[in-house]
């Protein structure tokens, strides 16, 4: 049966133009060796236009996503199934496992805000964290990540949380307080005692290695 469908597909691709052929080839193959389309060519186009990935990378990321829970994620995404992987699975990826901000990253990029991710969220996350993403985009999401209470400002409590995650209690309470004050003093341009996205972006402009540090290789 599968043989037949494969033949069919082959014929269709033979008949249609070269582009179509190319598409079925690069739609990727399932692991077992029998050819099967995961995405339609339109879907891949859309992904390619909306993320910083090539088709190949999108397929690779799909497999990474699927490997987290092979029983949950179908191999056929042409009808856009509504699958969400729970945060526990996302957070256990080796790229995120030891990152102190992993939960925040997952929360910021997930649609439900709880860290449970659809494939779209997953792609979006790694697209922003890729090396191709521009500084503004990265800064926007970095701001979101450090804004723990989601109030669109980085206030003192957010900063304290950030520091605790950064150093894991290496600083004394006094030092944490001092760092918070100083950071807000330095970066707060409109003197409202907290950092808005504007302040944050302005500060990031002067950080020479932000682009290289806010980057996850996958």
């Amino acid at each position, binding site marked *: 049966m599968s043989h037949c469908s494969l033949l069919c597909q082959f014929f269709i691709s033979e008949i249609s133009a070269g582009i179509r052929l190319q598409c079925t080839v690069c739609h990727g193959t399932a692991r077992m060796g029998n050819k099967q389309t995961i995405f339609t060519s339109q879907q891949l*186009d859309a992904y390619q*236009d*909306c*993320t*910083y990935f090539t088709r190949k990378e999108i397929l690779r990321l799909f497999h990474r996503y699927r490997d987290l829970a092979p029983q949950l994620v179908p191999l056929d995404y042409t009808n856009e199934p509504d699958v969400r992987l729970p945060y526990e699975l996302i957070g256990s990826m*080796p790229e*995120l496992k*030891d*990152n*102190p*901000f992993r939960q925040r990253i997952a929360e910021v990029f997930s*649609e439900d805000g709880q860290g449970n991710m*659809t494939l*779209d*969220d997953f792609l*979006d996350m790694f*697209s922003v*964290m890729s*090396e*191709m*993403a521009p500084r*503004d985009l990265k800064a*926007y*999401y*970095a701001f979101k990540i*450090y804004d723990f209470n989601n109030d*669109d400002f980085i206030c003192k409590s957010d900063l304290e949380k*950030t*520091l605790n995650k*950064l*150093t*894991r209690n*290496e*600083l004394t309470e006094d*030092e944490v307080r*001092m*760092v918070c004050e*100083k*950071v807000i003093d*330095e*970066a707060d*341009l*409109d*003197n*409202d005692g907290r950092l*808005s996205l*504007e*302040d944050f972006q*302005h*500060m*990031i*402009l*002067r*950080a020479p290695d*932000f682009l*290289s*540090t806010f*980057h*996850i*290789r996958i």
Partner: protein
Amino acid sequence: MAGRVSFGSDLHTDVESPADEDGVHDSFCQLIEEQCYGRHDDGMEMTPLDPDLEDESRDDVVYLDGPARHWSESLSDAPQQTDNLIGERWSSDTLKVLSSMPSRTIGRSRGAIISQYYNRTMQLRRRRQSRPSIQHFPHSARPSIRGYGVETDGAGFQEEENKRERLVNNLQNLSVSDRVRMLRAMPLSLAEKKELRMLVLNKGEHSLSENQIPCCSQLKYYIINAVRHGWYSWLSLVSSLQLWQTALKCVSGRFGTGVLSYFVFLRTLLFFNIFLFLFTALFLAVPQAVLPPAQDTHTNNTSRRSSWGLEVLTGAGYFSDSVLYYGYYSNQTLQSGRRCSQSSNGTSCDAAFSYNMPLVYFFTIGAAFFITCIILVYSMSKSFGRSFRIDKSKGLLAIKVFSSWDYKVSKKSSVRLQRANIGTQLKELVAEVNRQELKSPLLQRVFRIFIHMLAWIMCLGSTLASVLGVYYFSEYMHKDLTSRVRSSSSDSLLKEASLLAVPVLVSSINLLLPGFFNAVAWMEEYDSPSVLNYVSISRNLLLKVSVLGVLCFHWLGRVAMDPQILGLQCWESFVGQELYRFLLMDFIFMLLDTFFGEFLWRLFSQKALKRKRKPVFDIARNVLELIYGQTLAWLGVLFSPLLPVVQIIKLLFLFYMKKVSLMMNCQVSGKPWRASQMTTIFITLLCFPSFLGAAVCVTYTMWTMKPSAGCGPFRGLKTMFQAGKLWVRDLALANPSLWWLESAHTYLVENPLFLFLSAAVFLIVIYFHSQVLDGQRKIIELLQEQIENEGEDKKFLIMRLQDIHERRRVRSPRRGQRDNEGSSFS
């Protein structure tokens, strides 16, 4: 004006000059106006004004024409009102304006993002207006981003839809590659982006062929992608290839940037020496070793062999007739028809390969020094640029907090290391901030100054004493050697051992005096560790420079002036040996110091004194020891071209030894401090007294000293410098078309005027650069002040707005009531 209104995204692109300040006010007024319009009708400009609005604008006019009394009132009120900006008594309009300040809206809601990008697409389209727009688009529909942050009800949703529609329109009118770029850079979720994209594509269905990115731009995209990929992987490869990277990270994680700077400096020195070694080995040692000179056999070659161990220490005996020293090199043109491929230095290789040794010797040393100088100056300027940033203190801590975590790191141990690293650096920064606030009373300060003066006098005195000691002792040893030569006593072992006396003395001074300095500094009680380090560095530097000065005088003034007294055939080799001995002794004393001073002291203080404390790593002394050693190596290159090898071995050993000792024996300095300018200072010290001194000595030797007649590549010449001159003259004689070379040589190299001129130009360039930097710093200060002032202006204008409303409320209670209802509703 549109660009100015949206402060948000464009603040950094178009910095306004102070003269534009009116414009800002205008834009602010416009913002307010826009808000007023926006309430009724989303910024459409061509709509009839309703009576309410007319009333408001009339109010404005009245107010502006009003008596000056109002002004002064509002001005005097302003300061106390600004304190409670977010009071409850604000009218709804003021609140609206407040909530629509750029700092409060950008990125707040999806609608705001969409409209922000709408504006960007508009800008992009305007910039590329040469493209014919497919669809007519009304320019008057300039939306305000601001209003949407606060609106969440149905109307807001409606407007968001509108906005989206316009964005889609705009996107559609962009070229395909621009559209894709814009779409990718939007901070929206992927689902929304896909939806937007679908909308755009559906709208533009009639031009489906455009759907696909044109082949050429796609190709361009791939090429850019590939190049970038390659560049990043190259960068990561380079950084992973860096020597001792993990070791350095370990050190900086545990001990902070101060100690790290020592190890980084050590690595820099290692690279300098490797470079020097490659240079001399490739051009001097290898050719000479391949084609050994026809030696007149030394009669006493075998008898001079005393003991292997002592020879390694003194560098004399067996070694004195090797490529290690100047004396071994021949003064002839090396010629070999057959072995030309082995000599491998790429000169002409026709019939007979010729290698003019004196010339090569001269130019190799000269070029090595020249290139080292350029590298030094370059790295110095680079590190100056890095440490003396224009905006030095601003935003360091914030940047550290928000951009120092490397998201790429995924190994557990690296994560721990990074965490420790960031923690230490934050501590250092905080300590630096804290220290600036400290102040002490006057009396205490006077006392302090007195103590400091006393300490300096003690340090200078001891330095002077040790310098005099070295001077007289070396004189004594010199005389001793002379008398020994005269009496020709046969006890060669003792003679060789006596050669070690001066190096041992100097090295022990180098070992003991810094300890004394430290004790003095302990008495002084500096509160800032960085000041302590700088003081300690300057004292050590003074000691080392003066000792080296005396030694240089000893070699060039005593030994070289009258080599016959010592029975020397080749004083250059003797000086080379001396330098070798000093370098080796320095190394041995460093080993001893590490063992006794750090290891045994730690054991002693922990076991015997039962103290928990370990010694603290003394950065200043260790760095100055490195600089001292390097100066010796540079001085010795002329006399012993392979001396850098010794230095390389020494540095390699030293790195591992110091690291192990640091990890085992030392504790973190009690007061953390940030070594922001340490590397700069080390490099500067390396450049200024160390390299410059060595270069001056070497040039002096080359220009004025008479080389020994019996050995070396320059035998028979008046000065080493003549080698180049003779060659140029020969060249000019051989082919007359090169006559200009000789005159160029006379005018450029021999005439000091050229040197002075180039130095002057160099200084002028440096001066201009520093002036430009200074100007930039001033401009930045001005701009920062301007930002603050603009904040004040905004506050003031909000006050005014509030004032209008309050007065209106008082005047017409009916409308005021309505306003109140409105505000409570919203």
